[in-house]
Structure formats: structure tokens, C-alpha cells
């Protein structure tokens, strides 16, 4: 069995059985970015409770199955349309930045590519630079993705404080992956049944762009998604005859290399069995 890390999954919306199944399939660690709850929250206090869940509750749930849990904090792009609420939430994030397992600011980004979303994205960048945090970025869905990804990369390049190797541009697909890699950023491919990447297309992309600075994740959440999507990619790579060393690099070594840049990364309980 190949040990793997799922660098993007929303376990708050998954069952404990999923943790169990992921552990049985070789999952050693996950990182959980702050995201939209399925409804717009009414106050910054709602986010404070959510952040407590991410940094206190989920690590304990994951630990029952030997899975190390890490998190990222922010107000997501969808609720960022409300600039006033966003500023209140950004103001409380520093309270949580020194909690164990917090890797940085994320998943920030754009949703419908509006001016307000861009303002809040930039203010998250300002916070991350002020506090020397790593950054995880959500790129938009479907028809908004290409435009939004390019806008995000414009903003990152427009800010001379940004160190590309400490930023992951997530949810890349065929038409956006090269913008992220050419900019020196890490990137993530999300394996979804219908939108984003299927495991087969993700392996196609790996065959085209190589294995440097690229990860895969399930982004499992309360929508149609598969918390075992990373093992599906492992099977697809094997089916095509790709070497085990390449599989290990994509699903284990690359996320580890990216995470290790965080000040709060700790890996004593990680065991590489592959």
C-alpha cells in the first residue's frame, strides 16, 4: 500500500467513517483549508467557532486513525463579497496562527472574479506577508477559472513580497496549470467526479507537465466528491505503468516538501511505509 497525504480535504463535512477508510487506504496526513459552509455566516464570531473546530476538534478526530491533521485559515472567496465581514474575520485570524497544525492562510482566492473578492484576496496577502505565512489559493469553478486564475497570478506577481515557492495555486486544470508552474508557484489538482479533474485527466496533466511542484487532492466536502480520490489516482498511475517512485513523489513527497516550509509543521508521527 502506498502511503499518501491528501493536501486539501474538508473533513468537517465528512463522517468519521471516512477517516477510517482513508487510513485503511494509506492516508498519513491531511490539510484542511477554511471554506464556505454551504451558507453565508452572519458574523465574525461564526468564523471564530469554525476556526476552533479546525484547530481543536478535527485534529483529535483524525488522530483516532493515526492521521495527522493540519489546517489553513481565512474567509473564503464566496463570503469575501462582503468586504466588511471579511475585514472582521481577517482581524481575528492572528488569534489562531500560533495554534499547532496551522500551516498558513487559505484557501483564499476568487469565486466570481469580482472587485470585492479581489480586494479581500489582496488583504489576505497583506496579512500573510505581515505574519510570514504560507498561502493556499482556491481558483474559481468552470467558466470563471481561466480568468480568475490569471487575475490571481496578476495579483501575486504585483506584490513583490510574495515568495512563489511558499504559495500553492489549487484546482488547476489543463488550461491553467502552466500559468501556476511558470510563475514558480506550487499547484494542486483536485480530483472530482464531474467538475475539476478526473483521476485520468490529472495523470494526463502529470504526463504533460512533469512532477515538480505539483500535488493532487480530493477536496472532499459536503458536495459530490470522493475522500478516496487520491488512491484512485494512484491506481490510474499504476494502470499506466508509471513507476512507484513517481507515484510516491506526487502523493507523498511533494505535499511533504511544500508543508515543511511552514513554521508550525511537525512530522514525528508520520511514517512512510511505501
Amino acid at each position, binding site marked *: 500500500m502506498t502511503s499518501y497525504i491528501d493536501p486539501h480535504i474538508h473533513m468537517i463535512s465528512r463522517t468519521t467513517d471516512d477517516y477510517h477508510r482513508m487510513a485503511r487506504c494509506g492516508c498519513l496526513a491531511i490539510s484542511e483549508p477554511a471554506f464556505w459552509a454551504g451558507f453565508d455566516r452572519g458574523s465574525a464570531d461564526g468564523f471564530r467557532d469554525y476556526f476552533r473546530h479546525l484547530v481543536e476538534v478535527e485534529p483529535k478526530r483524525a488522530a483516532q486513525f493515526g492521521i495527522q491533521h493540519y489546517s489553513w485559515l481565512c474567509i473564503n472567496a464566496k463570503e469575501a463579497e462582503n468586504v466588511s465581514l471579511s475585514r472582521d474575520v481577517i482581524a481575528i485570524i492572528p488569534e489562531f496562527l500560533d495554534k499547532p497544525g496551522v500551516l498558513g492562510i487559505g484557501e483564499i482566492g476568487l469565486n466570481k472574479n469580482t*472587485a470585492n473578492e*479581489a480586494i479581500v484576496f489582496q488583504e489576505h496577502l497583506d496579512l500573510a506577508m505581515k505574519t510570514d505565512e504560507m498561502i493556499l489559493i482556491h481558483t474559481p469553478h468552470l467558466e*470563471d477559472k481561466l480568468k480568475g486564475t490569471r487575475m490571481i497570478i496578476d495579483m501575486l506577481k504585483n506584490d513583490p513580497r510574495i515568495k512563489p515557492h511558499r504559495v500553492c495555486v489549487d484546482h488547476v486544470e489543463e*488550461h491553467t496549470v502552466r500559468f501556476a508552474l511558470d510563475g514558480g508557484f506550487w499547484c494542486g489538482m483536485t480530483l472530482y467526479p464531474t467538475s475539476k479533474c478526473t483521476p485520468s485527466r490529472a495523470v494526463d496533466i502529470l504526463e504533460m507537465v512533469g512532477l515538480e511542484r505539483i500535488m493532487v487532492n480530493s477536496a472532499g466536502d459536503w458536495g459530490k466528491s470522493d475522500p478516496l480520490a487520491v488512491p484512485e489516482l494512484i491506481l490510474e498511475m499504476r494502470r499506466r505503468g508509471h513507476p512507484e517512485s513517481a507515484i510516491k513523489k506526487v502523493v507523498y513527497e511533494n505535499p511533504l516538501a511544500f508543508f515543511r516550509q511552514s513554521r508550525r509543521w511537525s512530522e514525528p508521527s508520520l511514517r512512510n511505509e511505501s
Partner: protein
Amino acid sequence: MNSVNPLKPTPTKALLEQQFLEIRCKILDLAAQLDRLQRGGDLEAIEGDPKWTRIQKGITILATDQPAKAQSVQELFSLHYDPDWKKPSPRF
């Protein structure tokens, strides 16, 4: 992307053997979806609809020999990007 990619694509002949049934299934699915639209009885009602126009263009891309068809289909279904959009300024 500068380092050598250790992943070699599966040779075409072997890939065809491996994926023939999957490709057949996907073409059949698409054909059935187009039949469904036709059975709705009013194809004229969607003439000029940008969604239908893009679907028709997408099918055309599949029938060409051009490389990177998946990327072309993605770009077809994407909104226009304006490089001169008004960016917020970093606060140092």
C-alpha cells in the same frame, strides 16, 4: 517543468486497446445526450444559445487532429480575461 519528466505516455496502440471501451462509452453517452436534446422537439429554440454554440464548437474540436484538445475545450468554455483589469494595491 525544466527537469526531465519521468512519466512516459502509454504507446498509442496499447492505449487504444486499454481504453477502447471507455472511449466508446463516452461517445455513446454524448450521442445519447444529443439525441435527448433533439427529442425535446425544439432544437430551433436553442439556436444561438451560447451554451449550445459552445457545445457544437466543442464537438468540432474533438474531430480535429490538433494536439491539446482538452485544453482547447477548456478555453472554449472559459470567460474572457482582460489583462488590464483594475488590480487592488498591496499595503506594505
